[in-house]
């Protein structure tokens, strides 16, 4: 099937549009998503097509929005709740953590919560500490939640369509930098199941595991290192829960080295957990300590220079890969 290039936000809109068209139980609520078409233009045109009952603006009240979504899901519909910044999802954490994540288990599997929270995170553009966080670790930590972090338009579409067809609560975490990026998306039906990673670049010397906005950064670093003859494999897990451990472990068994790149702060992050899985299940395959390249343990500063310094940049990834290969840093020619 021929691929065409569309934007990440367009791919998301296609997924919502197609699933709303196919399933009358799917609806979407959020701040400014109906009349305005959403801050990132993901929901543009949906109000006209599906009407105000299924495409509904809400007040600025995240706790209420998430509560409505979780309740509606328990009642048998398929809500999408768009939260403008993942930072604001904290207002709804009780509904997410104590209700949505637990309901299936506590009802012996009889109750299901097909609740999809679409939101976006990440630093970029000087939106400061309360609009820049990468909070996937909070959701990753809670059993019962699915955590999805698409890095490409094709995955954004395919994973969102899958999210709207399965029956567990999904934290669908987009990245504010990615909405305008373009990429090939197959024509027609395109669904990506959870738990299957993608090898973004084949390599034999070192495995880099990155998700969301860090995938492109890892690919850029790999490109730089290819000039030195270093052959980097880049793996994008696409969903953190469920995690494609098999793909990661197979790659590490091949390259003997793992570098995990996350935008979120280092402490208590998903990278640490993936590192622990690798050392547990592939210890005797390793030729170097597992390296983590992560954000600093600081609130993201407003100042753009400091913001860039707080999250991994391409050179940080290059440095991490070189450490994993026991190669010293290049002479600091730039300094």
């Amino acid at each position: 099937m021929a691929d065409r290039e569309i934007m990440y936000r367009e791919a998301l809109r296609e997924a919502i549009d197609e699933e709303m068209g196919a399933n009358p139980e799917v609806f979407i609520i959020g701040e400014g998503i109906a009349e305005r078409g959403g801050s990132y233009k993901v929901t543009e045109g949906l109000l006209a097509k599906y009407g105000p009952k299924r495409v509904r603006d809400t007040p600025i009240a995240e706790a209420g929005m998430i509560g409505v979504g979780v309740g509606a899901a328990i009642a048998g519909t398929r809500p999408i709740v768009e939260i403008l910044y993942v930072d604001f999802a904290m207002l709804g954490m009780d509904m997410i953590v104590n209700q949505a994540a637990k309901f299936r288990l506590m009802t012996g599997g009889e109750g299901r919560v097909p609740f999809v929270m679409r939101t976006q995170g990440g630093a970029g553009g000087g939106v400061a500490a309360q609009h820049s966080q990468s909070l996937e670790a909070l959701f990753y930590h809670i059993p019962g939640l699915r955590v999805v972090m698409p890095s490409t338009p094709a995955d954004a579409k395919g994973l969102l369509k899958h999210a709207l067809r399965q029956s567990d609560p999904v934290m669908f975490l987009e990245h504010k930098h990615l909405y305008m990026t373009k990429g090939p998306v197959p024509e027609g039906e395109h669904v990506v199941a959870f738990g299957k990673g993608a090898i973004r670049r084949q390599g034999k010397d070192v495995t880099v595991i990155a998700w969301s906005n860090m995938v492109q950064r890892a690919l850029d670093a790999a490109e730089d290192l290819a000039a030195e003859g270093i052959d980097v494999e880049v793996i994008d897990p696409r969903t953190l829960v469920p995690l494609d451990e098999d793909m990661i472990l197979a790659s590490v068994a091949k390259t003997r080295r793992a570098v995990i790149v996350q935008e979120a702060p280092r402490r208590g992050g998903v990278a640490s957990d993936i590192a622990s899985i690798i050392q547990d299940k592939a210890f005797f395959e390793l030729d170097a300590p597992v390296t983590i390249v992560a954000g600093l343990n600081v609130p993201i500063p407003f100042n753009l220079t400091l913001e860039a310094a707080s999250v991994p940049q391409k050179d940080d990834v290059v440095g991490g890969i070189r450490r994993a290969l026991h190669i010293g840093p290049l002479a600091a020619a730039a300094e």
Partner: protein
Amino acid sequence: MADAILVPQVGQDLTEAKIVELHVKEGDTVKKGDMVAVVESEKASFEVEAFVEGVVISLPFQVGDWATVLEPLMHLGQPGETLVAGPPAEPKAAKPPPTAASEPAREKTVVPLAVDPVKAVSKKTSLTVVPAAGGARVVRSSPVARVRAAAHGLDLAAIEGTGPDGAVVLRDVDSVLVTGGTGVLSTPSAWGGADLETRILRQGEGVPILFIHGFGADLSSWRPMVGALGIGCPLLALDLPGHGGSRGHGAADFDALVEAVGRAAAAAGRDGIHLVGHSLGAAIAAALTERGDLDTRSLTLLSPAGLGPSIDGAFVDGFLAARSEAALAAWMRRLVHDPASLRGALVRATLAAREDGGLVEAQKRVARGVFEGSTQLFSIREALARLGVPCSVIVGREDAIIPATETEAQVPAQVALYRLPRVGHLPQIEAADLVQTLIARTVRSAG
């Protein structure tokens, strides 16, 4: 051994529980799952179950008593068994009285355990190789390097590490495994001026030691030796013509072998050299020293050829003809006194080396040049008799390849002779520690 049923933790911050019901007494038999007691805290009561079968052999409490949580409530055992004071599974004796605050006491018992390993680790971090108790060495290495080295029978201590802090990493192991490969070593791995395959097994300071292997082996056979030698000088090895990476070298009689090795030794030892040889390699070392153009400082000869006339011709033929691992192992077992000392890895490595064509043919050519049936065509008797440098001859009394009695009979008086009981033709394997000591002693005796 008695099993303790513990007083349950009845609340997060409570240290004692009141016993409100007891359903058993000493001597009763209980089954797994039986309710044996009920204890109560301020908030709730808890039923206590037996989790194993047994007879109640100790029950020091009565209803109404207060008991410390997580301490034994009762003990179950075999009929007739009595509770032994302070059994290993019963921590009561080591603990303070129940009235004492337990937290600080627990910390005290933990602290020494936690501190010692930390100290030990911090001592290690600055060292590449740490001699451990008993003379064994701890080598920093990556997990996969250990696995790979073990799979090929390599001694990590013999491999130069190029990883962080000198750790042996995969590329170091692989560079050893790839015969003739350049590897990624940060230091030169060979020396120039020789038309033989040469290898620097370990860098060092001072007069180098050159190791010369015997018929049918190659330089890799010395690797297990170098890490444990305890001498700081450079350790060098070469592949004899017709062997290892020198299989294409055409030298095929004794004089030609000596000539080829002499050129390599001269290039490596302009300021003197110590020679260690095994079997045919020992004879070459002795002949080189006799020639006088090399500044040989000492000689250590392991199971030297060229002293008596005999060699096991059937072994040479069978060894060269063997094509399967089983056949090769059958012949190679003749090299040692104790068959268990011949590691499968050595047999497999020998067989694997033959996979590249030409090796067996090259060795047959050498064999025709130096042996005729069961006779050695060369002699080092006169060379040894005129020797002026420190020399040690080490023979295994059970050598089935070259009869030890013939060798011993020809060792002149000024040469030290070590006769090792229960050792065959490979003393460097069957008496590795002793041979290493004797090599070091011989080298040092040269000053």
